[in-house]
């Protein structure tokens, strides 16, 4: 008896879902780690989402947008998968968005594939994420995309022969190091040594000292955002490594605003590969930053950029499909879409549904008394190299 009853109620739920398609609202489920260790990243991303909606209105292609926000509390793929299921089954959302962390994005990817729901990853950077569902697009970056470009640049125009690598001992850290080494070795560079430090421990003095003892020509560093960039920056200064003599290279987190403020002049000379920096000189970016600061009293970062462009992709896709929200239509509209983002020209790769963008090489210099990231070079239309190689096989 029970079995039959359960089937009946589910059928009823499905009917309800079908009915809502013709209803006016488009429901967007946002899954982010609003609490826990990565809460600040989620806040910066969510701020940009709200800003975009404020700027572009809550109605797209004649249909009102409605947001349902869910907190994973940090890295929790089991919770992320359940929340995605509930958003699809209980809240009948049409689009899944957010995803700051890779494990959560991978888990929710299965739900997007099974429920055929359009899913926009706005930060998680591991390459294989977009392979989990054909209805998924990404508007942030992939770790190899930025680090391979940086590695190739370092060995060529950067004029660096030998590098010592120091990375956080966990997934993203390994991907960043691997990306950089692929690019660097590919362009003739040589890696003279490497060390990995624990994710959790914020004190880097010992590792920086090991690097100093080897007195390498250049050091590549990968640290997660938050408190660690500032900590390792200070350790560099305290252990007497001057980024203007020993070249220090990293992904953009190392020289974000709070890290530069904490490091002071120790940051001068640090070279980073970045897909976005709030000081990027473009009218569109300056307007975005001004609006963001006005709204939230702090400047945006690359988390915000992923969210802002993610919303742009959703808005444009909905316009293109005239308000139809089934997964196939939306992902079809998203593929190949290109636009001028505050970070620069970007587009969605039709084959991999991942982002193609410019990677900027920047160095910290003192401009008008302030230490800022100055663009010294850029590599345009960079695709995610890992998936490019996978295609070729």
């Amino acid at each position, binding site marked *: 008896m029970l079995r039959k009853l359960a089937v009946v109620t589910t059928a009823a739920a499905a009917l309800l879902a079908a009915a809502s398609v013709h209803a006016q609202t488009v429901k967007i489920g946002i899954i982010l780690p609003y*609490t826990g260790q990565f809460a600040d990243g989620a806040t910066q991303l969510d701020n940009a989402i709200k800003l975009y909606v404020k700027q572009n209105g809550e109605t797209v292609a004649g249909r009102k947008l409605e947001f349902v926000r869910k*907190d994973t509390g940090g890295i929790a793929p089991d919770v992320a998968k359940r929340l995605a*299921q*509930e958003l699809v089954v209980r809240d009948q959302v049409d689009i899944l968005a957010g995803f700051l962390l890779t494990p959560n994005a991978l888990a929710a990817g299965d739900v997007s594939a099974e429920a055929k729901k359009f899913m926009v990853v706005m930060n998680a950077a*591991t390459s294989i994420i977009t392979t989990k569902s054909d209805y998924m697009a990404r508007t942030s970056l992939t770790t190899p995309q930025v680090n391979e470009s940086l590695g190739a640049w370092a060995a060529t125009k950067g004029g660096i022969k030998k590098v010592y690598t120091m990375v956080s001992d966990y997934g993203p850290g390994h991907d960043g190091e691997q990306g950089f080494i692929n690019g660097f070795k590919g362009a003739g560079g040589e890696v003279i040594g490497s060390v990995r430090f624990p*994710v959790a421990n914020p004190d880097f003095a010992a590792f920086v000292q090991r690097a100093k003892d080897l007195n390498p020509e250049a050091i590549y560093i990968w640290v997660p955002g938050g408190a660690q960039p500032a900590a390792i920056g200070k350790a560099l200064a305290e252990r007497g490594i001057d980024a203007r003599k020993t070249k220090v290279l990293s992904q953009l987190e190392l020289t974000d605003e709070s890290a530069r403020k904490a490091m002071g002049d120790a940051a001068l000379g640090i070279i980073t590969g970045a897909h976005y920096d709030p000081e990027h000189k473009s009218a569109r970016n300056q307007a975005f930053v001004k609006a963001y600061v006005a709204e939230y009293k702090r400047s945006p970062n690359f988390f915000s950029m992923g969210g802002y462009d993610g919303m742009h992709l959703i808005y444009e896709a909905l316009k293109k499909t005239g308000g139809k929200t089934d997964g196939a239509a939306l992902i079809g509209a998203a593929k190949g879409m290109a636009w001028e983002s505050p970070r620069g020209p970007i587009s969605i790769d039709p084959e991999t549904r991942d982002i193609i963008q410019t990677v900027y090489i920047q160095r910290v210099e003192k401009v008008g008394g302030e230490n800022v990231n100055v663009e010294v070079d850029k590599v345009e239309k960079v695709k995610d190299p890992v998936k490019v190689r996978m295609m070729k096989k």
Partner: protein
Amino acid sequence: MANASSTAARYFEGQVRWRPLEIVFWLAALLPFVVTPAYLSLASQVAITALFALSLDLLVGYAGLVSLGHAAFFGLGAYSAGLLAKHFWNEPLSGLIVAAALAGIVGYLLSHIIVRFRHLTLIMLTLGIGLLLHEVANSATWLTGGADGLQGVKVTSVLGFRFDLYGRTAYSYSLATLFVCFLVARRIVHSPFGLALRGIRENALRMPALGAPNQAHLRKAYALSAAMAGVAGALLTHTTSTVSLEVLSFGRSADVLVILILGGAGRLYGGILGAIIYMVARDQFSGINPQYWYFWIGLLLVAVVMFLPNGILGGLSALYKKSE
């Protein structure tokens, strides 16, 4: 003497008999299928956490060993089920048995260190071992997939029932496993071994004077509790096809201890009740207010301690006794 013997045996039968309230409780566990069909995946994860809390209750509530690192065995179960499904076969039921065996064996081995200690030292040793296992899993990226989690785990169905988006199969599977493990726990608690454990918790000094090998009893309790935690971990892997380092984290060990104390340790149902209340409250509060829900959960914990000492069940039974 005749009536003495019958009353003695009948006394223990009275203890073991199922109370009507218990039967009502387990029937109520079937309500979500009908009343809240859209909350079945949450119900499944509540059942899994309840099983995890039940395994901890055997340790904390009955053997008197407080652990702040029980996620070590939950994670062991989760990873062994995941690796089994990825590299060998993904039939879940056999996965549960393998997970239980592995977690139980590791639990038994570790118990030789752990049960020799008490109070803060014991708690910190379990914490240390839990954190060490977490680091091992993080550095063994080739095996565990490291921080990105174990990829390629695909557990599609159990006994032919597919794990669907609605969580119907997941909840049935989790609830059934919880019930079976609960019967085992109930039997343990009402067995001679359970009585010996309660003796150790009540007065560890007296037991050797009655010929009881305290250490041996505690080691076995630790192994049984670890095995059951392993089953809970395997259940999470099977129902979500995801495994990440979080299953071994300090956060999960702390959460399950909070859940057990919230429900009331030493009553078998404390962990289950605690899991229901804590996880439903967290789901609802975080639904209303994704950024600051910790505030309301904190308030709930403080209120329970203030008004219902010894957990909800402890507080209620005290109120019930006072009203008698």
